[in-house]
């Protein structure tokens, strides 16, 4: 946790965990979708489920889905803005199991894309995403993050790491999960700076990589965020 995370973020109230953190989780989900969201369904757990309205969690989740950072004055009028921009939103509550009390599952759909992102707001605006499309991965939004779906086959992790290393980019964390041996798998890779375009293009055309997203870091605000806030997709390079 950096000093400016403790003395910060600069944000629209009223709650760093229930407003700013919720906004960041939804913003990460937007980037994981990689397209303009048309429908968003949020399932709230624990304290999020109990006090969402009181803390503007609903507004913050919708604002993040629309691409807003926690200091965006759009947050208080996010529902009107969603309606104007053709985004259908829906809220439900559920027990998501043994997870942090401030957790939410966001299922976003674009015209052709769909993604399910589950994460927690840890306090002070810090967040952690621990599941994407059913895979148990792990990232915090404090670094640019690569999400890759790939075939579980020998050498994939080494191959991907090589491409990142050749781009002179350092890996901060890497988490890999698979459905079954030889089946569908996913990696989350937090990196110290965004990949160059050639490296990203190269990765998404690897034979066994079926889906790639590069999420910007979301802790500092739009000026410091690499990548495209409007969500230009690092589109699926389907296996050829």
């Amino acid at each position, binding site marked *: 946790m950096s000093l400016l995370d403790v003395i910060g973020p*600069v944000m629209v109230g009223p709650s760093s965990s229930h407003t700013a953190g919720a906004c960041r989780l939804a913003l990460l989900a937007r980037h994981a979708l990689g397209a303009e969201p048309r429908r968003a369904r949020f399932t709230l757990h624990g304290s999020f489920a109990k006090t969402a309205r009181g803390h503007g969690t609903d507004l913050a989740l919708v604002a993040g889905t629309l691409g807003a950072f926690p*200091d965006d004055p759009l947050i208080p009028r996010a529902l009107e803005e969603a309606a104007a921009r053709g985004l259908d939103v829906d809220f439900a509550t559920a027990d998501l199991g043994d997870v942090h009390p401030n957790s939410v599952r966001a299922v976003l759909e674009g015209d052709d894309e769909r993604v399910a992102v589950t994460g927690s707001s840890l306090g002070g605006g810090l967040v952690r995403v621990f599941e994407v499309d059913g895979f148990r991965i792990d990232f915090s939004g404090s670094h640019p993050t690569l999400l890759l779906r790939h075939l579980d086959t020998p050498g994939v992790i080494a191959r991907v790491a090589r491409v990142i290393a050749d781009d002179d980019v350092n890996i901060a964390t890497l988490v890999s999960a698979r459905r079954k041996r030889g089946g569908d798998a996913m990696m989350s890779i937090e990196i110290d700076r965004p990949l160059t375009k050639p490296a990203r293009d190269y990765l998404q055309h690897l034979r066994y990589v079926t889906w790639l997203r590069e999420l910007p870091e979301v802790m500092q605000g739009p000026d410091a965020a690499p990548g495209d806030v409007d969500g230009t997709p690092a589109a699926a390079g389907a296996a050829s």
Partner: protein
Amino acid sequence: MTLADLAAAPGPASELVLAEEAATPVERARLLEGLRGRLREMRASIDRGLVSDAKSRTGMVGWNAKTLWNAEDALRAPLLQRVQAYAMAVNEENARMGRIVAAPTAGSAGTLPGALLGVADHLGLDEDRLLGPLALAGGIGQVISQSMFIAGSTGGCQAEIGSSAAMAAAAVTEAMGGDAAASVHAAAMALMNTIGLVCDPVGGYVEVPCVSRNAFYSVHAVASAQLALAGVTSPIPPDEVVLAMASVGRLLPPELRETGEGGIADTPTGRRIALEMAR
């Protein structure tokens, strides 16, 4: 970094915090500018909050800072009046979904600016003198966050307002020329006397008791600084105080951790307000 490390720093404790975070002079300059930006955002939220009487979403708060700021100083205690008005100004802005600096959280955002800027304005300290103390406040928050999540939903209000009061106490002590040990002990005494505080917001809104609580704990922070500057210390080592608070946080039942189901939220009137707002 531990509180013991900070307390043993040869110069101001903030120097250790800045050195941990910024390895080069360029990074240090950038960090100090970041802190200056935070200080100015805090100032701006105070300025807006002192003149606004726009009600919050529920109507429970919104005019308290302005009312206190314009009230006759009956107790002849201008520092008290200033510190409390500043703290409530920030949290009433927060409750209106205005722009604030979480420090360390939004619900506890008023304590640090209330205490630090309140004392600074009372005594005429300039902005440059507040950057180190603000860094130290952040460093205290960093150390606490190594032991527990700083969130009412996991640790109760003590995790939020206790942290903010500890951060503010250290900052005020350093701003007043206290040495590293005094600054860290101010934080420990503020924390020790916040342990057990529950998070029980009416209806789940960050309004009651949050707004007045920031007023009270900004004063609490100034009181800690006053003791520390006079040489009073915490007999329990500061790091052990943090662990004690974390352990009490784990003992708190969910009703008292930001669910709006216990304490002040669970009074007949608190429940009625929650029902009215849910409609």
